[in-house]
């Protein structure tokens, strides 16, 4: 997108990363900043830290599952990782296991994946891609980061005090009656409640920003698809999160005052809790995936140098997904509903697959005859297409009544949601971090190391979770610390896979650190992108752009426009401009 003038209002202005006031002053500057870029970076580090915590728990869970817990004839116990190995301590070991998977789930869902893409990359890039100087409400933005931190501290505190074993879903009546965990359950539920506010405020901020702060010349259909995705996400965040707010509040009242709404003894209904919970938590799975899908749209078209195929179809399918996501929650409770209701929910669930598939086909069509660059972001985008297809397609047997009866609460479900959440969102997030790394930090990362990391993650991921599909269909239930001997081979493979995953993440970590310390300086537009963030410096200056932005071409017009800061030798236009 070309800028109209070359007058430089903010010519002498430094990068947003330039420290100005000494060490303490700089820390203070960051902690009180209202700059969306700094807040985005602060979110990035916060969510990555949470990812680390949740990841450690996941590795521990996998390690426990390396061997089933066996009691030999002479009373010796093998295969128990936690707690002393004597027959009385099996319950202790199981308790620790329950706490570990709960804290893994709660951290990953509420503290990592929900804020991951929107709050970190969205904060940084939404205003830049719109050509705005900031989000609509910068102070609210900082406030929501603090709410996030406070919420996460509640969660971490609950874990330090001993953790909870309710599962991330806090199902009643267990979550309202486990007396031993009283304060920790309250703390963890309160954490999720507080984090909801952060999510609402971020979503609200983004919706208003998208409506009001687009650069002159940018109509709704000139927006990059990442913005469409974030916009649809924000709508879900704003409309669904209050419902979990009241649900968790009721849960807290239930624990503290025994109000009875979810308590059968007082005439309440525990399944009502599940309905409330999933009315939020199903839409929220699209809060997780939609931003990831937005990233994929950007990466594929930039690194294949092709106009995105079916722009409007992708944009509208985001809104379509957001709309349908509100009416399918019942598929989590097929076993607790009447036949008619289950049938309706099943039919509606199949609807979700349609907009999802529309995106898939458009992405693949985008690649057709593109000049595909093989680099880390592209590898991640291709992995996404592969993994998320599996994740989405395995949702269908779960949405079908007959098959779900068998698969419900089995490892098949675990594998399904990991293929969507990790194979989808986390993979896209990693792709997005690589794609925008040069812009955010002004340094290039090592491409070869990045690709090695990506390949390791891809292999490790498939080994970890593909096996779980088979375990699930064979009857392995979720949330158990042990299993019958027949399952061991697949469990062992799955655990090995988790180690390869770890290796992949470590490669990325060292690559990022190396890049920050010694990476070559990044040019403003290393990939030849056409969206507005590539028009400013890397890293961007404090007020984002040197001059008022005026949008004169679409975000994906690779066949007619030489990208800013690039010349035609680097990124030649196609010889015969595609006719469409």
């Amino acid at each position, binding site marked *: 997108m070309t800028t109209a003038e070359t007058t430089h209002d903010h010519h002498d202005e430094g990068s947003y990363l330039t420290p100005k006031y000494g060490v303490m002053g700089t820390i203070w500057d960051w902690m009180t900043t209202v700059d969306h870029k700094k807040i985005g970076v602060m979110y990035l580090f916060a969510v990555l830290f949470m990812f680390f915590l949740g990841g450690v728990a996941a590795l521990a869970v996998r390690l426990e599952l390396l061997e089933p817990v066996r009691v030999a004839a002479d009373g010796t116990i093998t295969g128990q990782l936690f707690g002393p190995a004597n027959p009385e301590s099996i319950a202790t070991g199981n308790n620790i296991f329950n706490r570990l998977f709960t804290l893994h789930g709660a951290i990953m869902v509420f503290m990592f994946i929900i804020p991951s893409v929107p709050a970190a990359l969205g904060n940084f890039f939404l205003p830049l891609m719109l050509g705005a100087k900031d989000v609509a409400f910068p102070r609210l933005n900082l406030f929501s980061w603090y709410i996030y931190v406070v919420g996460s501290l509640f969660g971490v505190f609950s874990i330090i005090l001993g953790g909870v074993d309710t599962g991330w879903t806090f199902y009643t009546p267990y979550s309202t009656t486990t007396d031993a965990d009283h304060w920790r359950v309250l703390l963890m539920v309160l954490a999720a409640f507080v984090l909801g506010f952060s999510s609402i405020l971020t979503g609200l901020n983004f919706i208003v920003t998208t409506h009001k*702060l687009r650069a002159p010349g940018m109509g709704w259909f000139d927006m990059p698809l990442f913005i469409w995705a974030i916009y649809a996400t924000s709508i879900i965040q704003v409309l669904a999160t*209050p*419902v979990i707010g009241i649900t968790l509040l009721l849960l807290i009242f239930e624990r503290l005052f025994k109000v009875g709404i979810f308590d059968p003894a007082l005439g309440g209904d525990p399944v009502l809790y599940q309905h409330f919970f999933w009315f939020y938590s199903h839409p929220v799975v699209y809060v997780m995936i939609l931003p990831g899908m937005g990233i994929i749209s950007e990466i594929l078209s930039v690194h294949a140098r092709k106009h995105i195929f079916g722009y409007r179809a992708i944009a509208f399918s985001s809104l379509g997904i957001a709309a349908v996501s509100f009416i399918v929650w019942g598929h989590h409770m097929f076993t607790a509903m009447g036949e008619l209701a289950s049938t309706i929910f099943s039919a509606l669930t199949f609807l979700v697959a349609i907009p999802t598939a529309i995106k898939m086909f458009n992405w693949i069509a985008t690649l057709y005859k593109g000049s595909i660059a093989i680099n880390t972001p592209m590898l991640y985008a291709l992995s996404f297409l592969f993994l998320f297809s599996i994740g989405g397609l395995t949702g269908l047997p779960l949405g079908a009544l007959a098959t779900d009866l068998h698969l419900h609460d089995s490892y098949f479900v675990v594998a399904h949601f990991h293929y969507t959440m990790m194979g989808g969102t986390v993979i896209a997030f990693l792709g997005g971090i690589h794609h925008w790394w040069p812009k955010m930090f002004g340094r290039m990362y090592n491409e070869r190391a990045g690709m090695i990391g990506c390949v390791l993650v891809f292999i490790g991921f498939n080994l970890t979770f593909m096996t779980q599909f088979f375990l699930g269909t064979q009857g392995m239930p979720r949330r158990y610390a042990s299993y019958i001997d027949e399952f061991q081979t697949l469990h062992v493979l799955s655990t090995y896979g988790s180690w390869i995953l770890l290796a992949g993440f470590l490669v990325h970590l060292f690559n990022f650190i190396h890049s920050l310390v010694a990476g070559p300086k990044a040019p403003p537009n290393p990939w030849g992108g056409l969206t507005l963030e590539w028009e400013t410096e890397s890293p961007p200056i404090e007020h984002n752009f040197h001059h008022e932005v005026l949008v004169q071409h679409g975000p994906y017009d690779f066949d007619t426009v030489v990208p800013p800061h690039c010349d035609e030798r680097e990124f030649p236009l196609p010889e015969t401009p595609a006719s469409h």
Partner: protein
Amino acid sequence: MATIDAPNPDIQATGAQTHPLYWKNRGFAHHFRNADEQFDACKLGMWLFLSTEILLFAGIFCAYAIFRMLYPEAWAAGSHHLDWRFGGLNTVILLLSSWTVASGVRAAQLGNNAALIRNLVITLICAGLFVFIKLYFEYIPKLSAGKAPGTFFSYPYAHDPHEPLWWSIYYIGTGIHALHVLIGAGLLIWVLVRAIRYEAYGPTEYTMVENSALYWHLVDLIWIFLFPLLYLIH
């Protein structure tokens, strides 16, 4: 940089009129192109926020509807304990206050600071009355008679075993609503103080008045639903 309407040099600068919060001295944040854009953005933000509030209460209404369906006798018995006259009086009070707060916005738009202050004060008195009636004539007598939520319920003459559930819904619904009344009153007090001290609101600067008033209308609206559901239908 920009001030929308620089102070008129002909007017003798009084104490208040040199203050940066005086409405004519207000600018707009640098990331907006002009003050109108900022106003629109703030208003859109407020409407979005109000939609989240409605969804929050939707959960309570939903629970109300489900248990009403399951235990109609308990609901009928429960609502007989509520005096429609107190509920009705509070409805009138809130409606009146919605009117005065709307007049306050109008006064701010016309630059009539005195009328703004007057209307805000009446609104706040209404808020106080509402909370007073709720506490003094409803919550306290009921709680001391044992008509309390959940397991705290100790009223000896209950007709239906599920009445405790009714009281849970009653206290949660009206309690969270009352909390919103207090938050709304807090916002209005803040507006009032700034109106008195700095003449902070006028024709080009009344975002805060408008948004607080919107919030207040929401509080009113929710009560309009709570009142018939809890007090009138049996």
